[in-house]
């Protein structure tokens, strides 16, 4: 009987591909964000609003991840923005290999900001590096203020929290104050924005911040 020491990361292959993507993004001066959230929190709406606000200011491309359909890609394409749809056929998260294949289909010379919209899921995408600069987690007020405590890994691994659907707060039991303090108890370094993709509230602050990050990279 013998023991063989292995000591290797299970996701080493994914991480190696993510690092290749990161190097290429850097070479091409592209800032990439990985948008994560539960289904229906408003990821695609936020991408649309960001595109509308940043028109003429930031050159954007989008990689859409969904379990099924290209409905999201159609929404982005309608705004005349380069978009590649990844259909995972059941997989609950994007992996770096899928993102690399989509990324190489884009014309890198015309991109300043790459938005990767992950599959709607607050669990699985948290462990997969896609080569992004930042993970941005979106939580809508209708989901409840306890979600950061229930899904800590996602909030710990993200740099930005966008609290969306703030126009609906009066119709929910969600306390914005509680939501913020729950999120900060998991990750005190989180930068928090509050938005409504319906009224447009807060989109300007989010986009201005994003633009300042692009300038500083």
């Amino acid at each position, binding site marked *: 009987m013998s023991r*063989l020491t*292995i000591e290797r990361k*299970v996701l080493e292959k994914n991480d190696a591909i993510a690092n290749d993507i990161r190097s290429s993004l850097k070479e091409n001066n592209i800032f990439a964000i990985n948008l994560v959230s539960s289904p229906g929190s408003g990821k695609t709406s936020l991408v649309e609003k960001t595109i509308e606000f940043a028109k003429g200011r930031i050159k954007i491309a989008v990689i859409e991840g969904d379990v099924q359909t290209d409905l999201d890609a159609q929404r982005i394409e309608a705004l005349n923005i380069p978009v590649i749809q990844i259909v995972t056929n059941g997989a609950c998260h994007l992996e770096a290999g899928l993102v690399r294949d989509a990324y190489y289909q884009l014309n890198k010379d015309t991109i300043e900001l790459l938005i990767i919209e992950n599959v709607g899921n607050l669990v699985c995408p948290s462990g997969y590096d896609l080569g992004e600069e930042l993970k941005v987690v979106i939580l809508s007020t209708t989901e409840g203020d306890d979600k950061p405590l229930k899904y800590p890994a996602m909030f710990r691994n993200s740099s930005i929290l966008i609290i969306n659907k703030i126009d609906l707060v009066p119709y929910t039991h969600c306390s914005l104050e509680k939501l913020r303090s729950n999120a900060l108890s998991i990750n005190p370094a989180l930068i928090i924005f509050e938005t409504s993709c319906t009224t447009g509230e807060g989109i300007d602050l989010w986009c201005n911040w994003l633009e300042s990050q692009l300038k500083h990279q």
Partner: protein
Amino acid sequence: MHELSIAEEIINIANQYVPSDNKSEVLFVIVEVGKLSNILPDSLEFCFDALIGDTQLKGAKLIVKEIPATVECVDCGNISEIENVIFHCKKCESSKVKLIKGNELKVIEIEIND
């Protein structure tokens, strides 16, 4: 339900260490899974068993060592395990803590009957 793809990667890595003499029987594959890695050990074991089928790992048992989330306080230097994944120092209550354990997802070793 990403345990299936994680189990696949574990099998791919472990297979690279099995001697190709067809005489060795792999008894155990030992992995470390951090509390914050979002992996359910029972589900991972189930997927591992379902995937090893007729591979070189046939009959092997997956042993999952769970690693608690552990933080080091930036203010007082205390190291403590955290429950309920609330990130604060148990000694001075500071929220300025570094996660030093809890994200693990590693294949540690295999045990072979040779």
